[in-house]
């Protein structure tokens, strides 16, 4: 029931690797890490979700906020490597149409 966030920065590319669960308890932690990155001009933020085994609307909310903020600041937000389970939430809510999602993993583990 925890979330680990690892951050790697290279020039203007920032990578956050998440592992664990994104829910009402851990989403504020993610928001705190992610939002400041999106508030700078011309940055690329890549969020790696391969090791996220649970996510709900609280996580979707964080990514929606981060997307808005990154667009306002001419930065780019990308989500990569999520499982098909997690991707399904983006599909149901239609968010897969507005958020840049790459490399969805087929297996549901």
């Amino acid at each position, binding site marked *: 029931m925890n979330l680990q966030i690892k951050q790697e920065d290279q020039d203007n590319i920032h990578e956050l690797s998440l592992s664990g669960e994104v*829910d*009402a*308890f851990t989403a504020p932690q993610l928001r705190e890490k992610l939002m400041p990155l999106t508030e700078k001009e011309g940055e690329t933020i890549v969020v790696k979700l391969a090791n996220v085994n649970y996510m*709900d*609307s609280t996580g979707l909310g964080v990514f929606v906020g981060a997307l808005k903020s990154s667009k306002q600041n001419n930065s780019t937000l990308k989500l990569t490597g999520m499982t098909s389970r997690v991707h*399904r939430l983006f599909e149901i809510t239609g968010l897969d149409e507005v958020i840049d999602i790459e490399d969805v*993993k087929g*297996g549901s583990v």
Partner: protein
Amino acid sequence: MTMTSDFVEMKIPAEPEYVGVVRLTVSGIANRMGYSYDDIEDIKIAVSEACTNAVNHAYPEEEVGQVTVGFGVYEDRLEVMVLDRGKSFNFEEIQGKLGPVNSEKSIEQLNEGGLGLFLIESLMDKVEISGEDGVVVMMTKFLHRDGVEVDASKVSSSPQQ
């Protein structure tokens, strides 16, 4: 129609760190009942959403209330009730009071958790909300023991691309 059922009830402090505890509990119950992996994940999300709404919106900041979660375990379905008042509830009495989701009042009440409510409706087979005395969300997932998925639009475990 058989009325045989087991009932499990738990009360949690209205704090976000306890939503995961409810999730583990419902996962255990659904697993024991024989739901598929995908169904269990759907139930976990729907129940978490209802608890998150209750935790975030039911009580003013300075007051830590309680959220009551009831699990009705039937032969053919799991019914989960999430009540954002700390008191115990009479399962059958509340069942009688519930109306359909699209009554305007209840949507308005849960407005801030709108995405969550939308997910609950998408992931469960039946959802009812009552706002008379606190908010009660009652959701049902049917158990299909024959292994045939009723909803063909579900994501399969194989890659799509």
